[in-house]
């Protein structure tokens, strides 16, 4: 395959590290009490996802994942935490209902995730099409597709972002008359 002897095991272990970072980040994002740690977990999860995108032959999306999720989304959420309250309330000590609720949440999500994971691990995934792919998936191909085939969704997403900015300003600014 290549002149370098241990390329396969090294690549596999790097892939394992990316998967582990993603999973650990998701667990941190969901299970911690303090919201700021949950945001840190989300950032960790995004970092692992960037690694997975790299293994999926898309370094452009890996860069975008880090740029948008860690650089924009997590920072905005941190600002939101600073402007509201930082912590979840502690669990009520005699919270029998709360415990039942958590157990229900765990059961539902475990059933759903386990089912989907089982199907995706055991399903017969067709081999990639033997014919030559239509494009090479490079950044140039993405750019030309965005400006030709997908120009309508591209313009629509810019409109959505504009409306989101204006809406966020209107909602969060608070009128003069509000308390």
């Amino acid at each position: 395959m290549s002149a370098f002897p241990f390329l396969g095991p090294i690549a596999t272990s790097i892939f394992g590290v990316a998967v582990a970072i993603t999973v650990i980040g998701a667990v941190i994002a969901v299970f911690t009490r303090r919201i700021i740690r949950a945001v840190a977990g989300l950032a960790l999860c995004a970092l692992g996802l960037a690694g997975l995108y790299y293994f999926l032959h898309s370094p452009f999306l890996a860069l975008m994942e880090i740029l948008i999720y860690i650089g924009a989304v997590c920072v905005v959420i941190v600002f939101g935490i600073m402007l509201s309250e930082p912590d979840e309330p502690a669990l009520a000590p005699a919270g029998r209902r709360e415990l039942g609720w958590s157990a229900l949440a765990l059961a539902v999500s475990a059933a759903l995730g386990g089912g989907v994971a089982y199907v995706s691990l055991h399903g017969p995934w067709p081999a990639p099409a033997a014919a030559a792919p239509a494009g090479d998936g490079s950044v140039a191909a993405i750019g030309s597709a965005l400006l030709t085939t997908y120009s309508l969704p591209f313009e629509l997403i810019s409109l959505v972002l504009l409306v989101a900015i204006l809406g966020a300003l209107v909602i969060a600014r608070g009128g003069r008359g509000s308390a």
Partner: protein
Amino acid sequence: MNPVLFDRPGVYLAVAAFLLAAGIFGLIQRRSLIGMLIAGELIFSAASLNFMALNRFVAPDPAVGQIAVLFIMGLAAAEVVIALSIIIAVYRNYRSIRVKELAELKG
């Protein structure tokens, strides 16, 4: 017929399924609005990873999935901005973003 670990679509899809499960668990179990927002982001990430995995392994044109994931990222960013502004407005009115205390519309 046993390719290396990172050339199997099932592995990526299983990771995406785990992200989906974690997101749904967080959505049900979290008791503050920002925690639920973070869980929703996990679900967005799961969808993106599914798109990219199927794009890499079964789609004929490798640019389509990347464009779809770019659109998902844009929508996720817009959603976070709107949700956070609503959360801040709620906090300004109620002095709390705990889900239990935002029950004014409850009959």
